[in-house]
């Protein structure tokens, strides 16, 4: 698969201090999460990809185009929703989005049409003629999303998209992002420090720490792999026979105290078969969990490791 973003030894320094430290990665996912604690370099990476910061070494490519030498072509492919409040206060919502779409190169009529569409799409259709300065925080976030998608980009940068939103507004924003992702027309880069947002919206995660890549994983594969890993609590007289029967089916087992078992299922074996086996062996399965590494586990491991994954490729 052609990479959406390639980081090729990308280094950014401010005042001699490295902010991004020779990052090397190739991101191919439909929706990639950028995770990291404050100051990890998430926003700097986005800003560098947008051409706001000049790399001091290395480069980055978006859809094969160099962000340094082909900045204009790169920007024409991108929609950007910044982290902080960014708008023109005395403009109406629809006029603002129209201005942004015209600057992206849409003709006047098309820009107006798409500004209206974008506003309806993000759920602000009724307030599109109100001045942006009068919008609530949630409405401003949605308006920022509207301006980012109005010109039909191929890659969407969302920097902390749920920042400051109350739970219902956050849910609406997450639903919108998921819908955009699932349509498959564009790729998403979601920068956030909220693990749940990234978990719900992304299929790949790049975790940054102190300007280095601390972890790089495919959440889908992690989820799929962890579905084979079970934790079980059983009650019955013939646990030993039950274990042997499971191992005969190809499972790896590890018995614990008080009837607890850890089981790794072989490929092709359904969980249903374990229940059938338990009935045959007269064993009660009182609890059965898929023990999956949550994104939180992956993130904490990355933060604790202190190691650097210099090369990330999925």
């Amino acid at each position, binding site marked *: 698969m052609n990479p959406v973003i390639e980081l090729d030894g990308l280094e950014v320094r401010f005042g001699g201090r490295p902010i991004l430290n020779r990052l090397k990665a190739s991101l191919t996912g439909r929706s990639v999460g950028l995770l990291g604690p404050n100051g990890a370099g998430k926003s700097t990476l986005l800003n560098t990809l947008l051409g706001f910061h000049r790399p001091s070494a290395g480069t980055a490519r978006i859809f094969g185009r160099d962000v340094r030498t082909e900045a204009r072509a790169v920007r024409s492919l991108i929609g*950007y929703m910044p982290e902080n409040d960014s708008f023109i206060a005395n403009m109406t919502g629809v006029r603002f989005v129209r201005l942004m779409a015209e600057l992206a190169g849409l003709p006047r009529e098309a820009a107006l049409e798409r500004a209206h569409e974008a506003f309806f799409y993000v759920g602000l259709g009724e307030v599109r003629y109100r001045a942006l300065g009068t919008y609530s925080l949630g409405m401003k976030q949605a308006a920022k999303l509207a301006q980012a998608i109005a*010109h039909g980009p191929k890659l969407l940068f969302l920097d902390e998209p749920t920042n400051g939103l109350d739970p219902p507004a956050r849910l609406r924003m997450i639903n919108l992002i998921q819908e955009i992702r699932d349509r498959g027309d564009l790729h998403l880069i979601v920068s956030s420090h909220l693990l749940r947002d990234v978990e719900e919206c992304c299929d790949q995660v790049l975790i940054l720490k102190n300007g280095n890549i601390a972890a790089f994983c495919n959440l889908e594969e992690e989820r799929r792999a962890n579905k084979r890993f079970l934790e079980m609590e059983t009650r019955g007289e013939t646990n030993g026979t039950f274990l042997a029967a499971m191992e005969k089916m190809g499972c790896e087992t590890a018995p614990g105290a008080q009837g607890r078992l850890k089981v790794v299922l072989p490929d092709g074996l359904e969980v249903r078969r374990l229940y059938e086996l338990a009935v045959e062996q007269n064993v009660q399965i009182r609890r059965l969990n898929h023990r999956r590494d949550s994104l939180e586990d992956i993130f904490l491991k990355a933060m604790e490791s202190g190691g650097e994954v210099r090369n990330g490729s999925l």
Partner: protein
Amino acid sequence: MAVYKKTYRPYEGVLTASWRRLLVIPKYAFEDLRRSRFLTIFYIASFIYPLICALIIYVQHNASALKLINAEGAQRMISINVPFYMGFLGWQSMLALFLAAFIGPGQISPDLANNALSLYLARPFSRAEYVIGKMLVLVILLSLMTWIPGLLLFGLEGYLEGWDWMTTNSKIAAGLFFGSWVWIPVLCLLALALSAWVKWKPAAGGLIFGVIFVGQAFGAVVNHIQRTSWGYLFDINYLVGSIWLRLFEGDNPTTTGAVFFRASMGPDGTAPPIWCSWMLLGLGGLVCLYMLRKKIRGAEVVR
């Protein structure tokens, strides 16, 4: 697609040429300016003087009209010559200063205050294009006040006087055109640079006047105390006026320049050389560009 479908779809239509995107900023700025009644009235009022000048030129060449108002001797009172056009340029340029002080501060500071620059510059739109787009707002308005009516007046006089007058006085046309193009960039760069650095619009507008008039006063004080003419180098009006004088009259001027833009001799009977005027205006322009370069960024770097 109907808006009620509420779905995202990619854009697959044509895109405009990049030079046309430069005109997007002035288009939206003019729509905003039109909403201000004060600015609209001020701008319309700025055409009163050119209309009066046109009327004078017309009446000068219309003996029956002069006879009608019993002013047959008026032809001798007002001459359509270099001082006439320099006076026109002086008046209009002073009005241009006021206009730039009113609308200039509102060009960049709102974008900076609302963090909108990251949105402009995340598009296929460079920092230079942003500044040029903002500058075009002022350039178009100031051109309509200065060299465009100036050349129309020159054309009117030439039409009434004949081709010979036009060729003999071609320096006037060049003076009007190039003289305006000395003043307009100075005003635009100053207004935009102060708009980028001073977020409070009234303060930025006041600073434009401050740079012009405080510099003038300071220069006069230096000249008076030191009995020199080098104090003029602090006076932007003098610098511009001295260049105008060369453009209109060449190396041997017979007047002291345009109203508000006098280029008289200093108390010691000398004047700074003309290259000083060019150099200082150029230097000022570079300083303004540097100020803009520091502020017009997609993302602020906190070191």
